[in-house]
């Protein structure tokens, strides 16, 4: 049976060639919490990319006579103070909230990755400069400082909010990366690469960072939710985005003004629910990633 033997070898060869098994990441799907979190994130992402899939009502097409009217057929979340369809506002607000969360997380990731790697790997004066800068930032009371800075801006966009959040969040993330790089820096395979004449930049790029980046990835995922929550917080405090922008933060802020939420509690409930679920989903995602990527933490 030479033919079947060859097939067998070919199949084995293919299996072997696939390289590192992804079983760690695949096992994520076995957890129902992860499945629900992933579903929420997918839905919210779709909402922000294609709001038309979820509603055909223009969120700016308002009718004052419908102000604070509860859920109706065709209007599952009722109407806000201005008589605008609330569901349509939720759908269009997803984008802003998600943008703030994701942009903040990605930017702090990049800054932390670069600064943390340099500080952790090279040490010395580079480390001193980067670490002391981050220490200064960590010493600032974040809440008050962000209020003060945001207050300076007349018109605030998503990027203004992102700027302030990144300004105060990169320092903590950088410390994670730095300590993770310092753990890897003197491992034997790094020494081996050094001993075989590989230059420092290449060692950093191909050997140190891939082995040190996991905690940073987890932390970044967790911070998406934090960024979204912060955006809402700024709106409530009056230093966030303003109408006519759409965001869950603005919706919560408007609902909290003038006792509106006492008359129409659903106006507070729906955006808070969306924000809470999405934040939670990113936290679950981050925690699952940590368990999957770190074999020592897996139970």
């Amino acid at each position, binding site marked *: 049976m030479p033919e079947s033997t060859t097939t067998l070898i070919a199949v084995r060869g293919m299996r072997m060639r696939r390289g590192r098994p992804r079983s760690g990441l695949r096992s994520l799907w076995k957890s129902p919490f992860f499945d629900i979190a992933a579903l929420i994130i997918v839905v919210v992402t779709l909402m922000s990319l294609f709001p038309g899939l979820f509603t055909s009502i223009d969120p700016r097409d308002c009718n004052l006579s419908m102000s604070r009217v509860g859920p109706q057929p065709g209007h599952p979340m009722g109407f806000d103070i201005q008589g605008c369809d609330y569901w349509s506002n939720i759908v269009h607000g997803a984008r802003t909230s998600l943008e703030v969360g994701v942009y903040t997380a990605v930017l702090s990731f990049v800054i932390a990755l670069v600064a943390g790697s340099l500080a952790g790997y090279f040490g010395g004066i580079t480390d001193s400069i980067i670490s002391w800068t981050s220490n200064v930032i960590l010493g600032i009371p974040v809440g008050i400082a962000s209020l003060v800075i945001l207050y300076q801006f007349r018109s605030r966009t998503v990027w203004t909010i992102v700027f302030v959040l990144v300004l105060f969040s990169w320092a903590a993330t950088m410390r994670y990366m730095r300590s993770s790089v310092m753990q890897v820096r003197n491992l034997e*395979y790094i*020494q*081996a690469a050094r*001993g*075989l*004449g590989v230059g420092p930049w290449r060692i950093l790029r191909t050997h140190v960072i*891939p082995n040190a980046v996991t905690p940073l990835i987890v932390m970044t995922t967790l911070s998406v939710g934090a960024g979204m929550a912060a955006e809402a917080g700024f709106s409530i405090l009056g230093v966030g985005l303003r109408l006519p922008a759409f965001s869950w933060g603005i919706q919560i802020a408007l609902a909290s003004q003038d006792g509106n939420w006492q008359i129409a509690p659903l106006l507070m409930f729906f955006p808070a629910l969306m924000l809470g679920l999405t934040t939670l989903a990113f936290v679950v995602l981050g925690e699952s990633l940590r368990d999957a990527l770190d074999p020592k933490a897996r139970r």
Partner: protein
Amino acid sequence: MTALLDVQNLSLEFRSGGRPPIPALEDVSFTLDRGETLAVLGESGSGKSITAKAIMGILPKPASRVTAGRIMFDGEDLLSLPPSRLRKVQGARIAMVFQDALSALNPVQTVSTQIAELYRVHRGMPKRQAMAAAIDMMRAVRIPDAANRANDYPFQFSGGMRQRIMIAMALALDPDVLIADEPTTALDATVQAQILELLSEITQERRMALLMITHDLGVAGQLADRALVMYAGRVAESGPIGTMFDRPAHPYTRGLLGSIPSAAHRGADLPTIPGLPPDIALRPPGCSFNPRCGFATDECRSLVPLLEPFDARRAAACHHKEEVLADAAVGA
């Protein structure tokens, strides 16, 4: 004529915040020439691996400091080369096989990428060509089915195969000097024999100088031409391995050889060297070996013996080497 690798009076210390520096190596000298195998012998903590890492220039930098000596390689002092020049020597002309291949390979890169990296860094080869060269190298170290195994990760290999990968990396650029730091310690006996055979075949084939660090006297006797016995960061004895093993000139060498199991010890306890090697930070005054030595006199307790040649090719750092030699001749 000078040797290819000539380590002269190398002293090195480790310092850690506030405490007095620890002299890890003191006055270590030896030479190594093309086509020659030198075994560096000694207990754990005697400075074998530190010597190797000092030659490779991969000791952690602010923590370790060379206080004296030179490492001459092909007429250049490696210790005074600028980093960019040093990197051209490392890997390409001097390469090292590490003790534990699993921790010396990057766990998140395929083995062929890691071998190919050397060709890309040192020879500037394009990616595809470097990969092909890496697979050839894997074949050269007798990895079966090399082309299919090329994209596997280190953890997918057995211990012996992993060590072959390490050897492939070390040999990739055809170095003049190969340093093997206990290359078989992590392996079982049969695999050990295969790896040693591979190392000796390849080094002879390519006329490399092999610096073999080991605490296995059998391995040393089998492979090496000459031996360097180290104790507590100093050289105890050096010379051709045959005559040294027949007639040791240092009581420590004698003790090591005496503790090899043999038929003569059947049924009896294995002779050992009494006591423990000293903490390098707290070396006894005089000869570091004096508390464990049957030949020790007051001279040994106060005066550090120098490594002195006593015939054309042998040297020992012992005040009583003549006695030890005479005694060994009688005892054997």
